[in-house]
């Protein structure tokens, strides 16, 4: 199973992010990684939580528009060139990245890149062929 990502729609208004973090905190949900996409008019918060279903439920109860999507997580070496190695594979395979973000498990140990592709199946094949480590949902959610 791939990594489950929770996406939340945000209007540009002060305090909205804090409301999200607060309701996750109150429900004892841990955030593994997050990124915020912003446009002139709105934002989309994307996060990977330790408990996707609970995070979704809690946010919905607080009136947010929430969507759950799958993203692909791959392991990268946490040193110069670690990310480049992976993106070279993506580039050679001619894959279009919708968005990506990254986090490190423990500095110097291993980095994790989260990808959203137009064609995830092809991406998985390309990564496998290049010998890049694909992380399962269980691994990422329980880190």
């Amino acid at each position, binding site marked *: 199973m791939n990594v489950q990502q929770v996406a939340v*729609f945000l*209007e540009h208004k002060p305090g909205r992010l804090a409301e999200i973090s607060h309701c996750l905190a109150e429900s004892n949900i841990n955030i593994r990684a997050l990124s915020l996409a912003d*446009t002139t008019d709105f934002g989309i918060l*994307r996060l990977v939580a330790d408990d996707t279903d609970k995070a979704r439920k809690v946010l919905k109860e607080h009136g947010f528009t929430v*969507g759950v999507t799958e993203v692909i997580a791959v392991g990268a070496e946490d040193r110069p060139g670690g990310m480049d190695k992976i993106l070279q594979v993506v580039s050679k395979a001619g894959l279009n990245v919708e968005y990506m973000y990254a986090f490190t498990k423990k500095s110097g140990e291993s980095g994790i890149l989260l990808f959203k592709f137009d064609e995830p199946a092809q991406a998985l094949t390309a990564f496998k062929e290049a010998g890049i480590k694909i992380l399962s949902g269980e691994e990422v959610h329980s880190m």
Partner: protein
Amino acid sequence: MIWNEKNETMPREELEVVQLARLQAQVERVYATVPYYREKMDAAGVAPGDIKTLQDIKHLPFTTKDDLRRNYPFGLFTVPLDRIVRIHASSGTTGQPTVVGYTRRDIKMWAEMMARSLAAAGVTQKDVVHNAYGYGLFTGGLGAHYGAEEMGCAVIPISGGNSKRQITLMRDFGSTVLLATPSYTLNLADTMAEMGVDPSELKLRVGIFGAEPWSEQMRTELESRLKIKAVDIYGLSEVLGPGVAVECIEEQRGLHIMEDHFLPEIVDRDTFEPLAPGEKGELVFTTLTKEAFPVIRYRTKDVCQLITKVCTCGRTFHRMPKVTGRTDDMLIIRGVNVFPSQIEEVLIGTEGVEPHYQLVVSREGSLDTIEAQVEVSEEFFSDEVRVLEGLTRKLQGNIKDLLGISCKIKLVEPKTIQRSEGKAQRVIDKRNI
């Protein structure tokens, strides 16, 4: 100058005699020639012979825009098409547009109403008239044009748009009078500033502005920026087009209604009972002389009161103040009539869009803008920016196609649009008109 001194300064008692005779003739003709009116009058139990005084008009049924739509396109015409010389239609794009027709005599009467309006604004045949009202199905352009020709002015039928060229020609031709919507005029003023044209280089001395509501603040703005006098003109295609009422340049306070051709009433907005002239209510018009397309007690949706105080200009016609409110939600955006329900149709017709929306009308610089706030439902929410922006573009495109206006779409979080407890407040107008 008063164009038709005899009629425009007629003592009230004489005017009322003229009005009653014309009203009786009009009601009789409508009853005899338009089945729809006859059925409505029969249902209300009123016959043409019951109109014995001007006050008896209150027994006649009202006419609304719905009645006009129901009789699309020519159902309320009193004459066959071979006697019609002109047809205009409203911008109504969903549902039925309202269609109005004119006989040769109607066009002549209209030209006189416009000539009277120009004269009231101080225009004479020596003037060069720059007519920037839109020419076409909209009554503004041609209506004003015929009046200015009737007066003998040199008319420049420039219509709307292409502001830089408008200003160049205004300067080169020595235009002295500008006819336009107030918001377009502000746009022209902005363009002049961009072009480095000083309004004092121009010969403009008066502007006659209408087709959308505008405020006293706007008058001050237009007058000081363009170094002109700004005069308000009122009209609606269902009744005539421009020239139903106009301010006199002497007072610039209240618009004289051409009462020898249009009989105004003010009725209560809820009970529709007639109100005294000084009381505020919905403005209702009955045409007294129109041939092709008369209307009986047409509800304009404009809210105002009548000013009966005698005016210093010498006209005896009652005045109406500048129109500031409408009884329903019709919006006029840059001269285009827009009903919130039309935007609603586009929004709701698009998959995944919540039926909760709100329209915010404001003015940016000199132009009216409209923004539709739409709640993001789970159905159309996406984690990809591209998808959401694609959706807003699609909505914008659909609205533009259908209504011809640019409407900004703002996505908002669920439940952020205030839910109504009765009638929804769909429109927030920030224009401060």
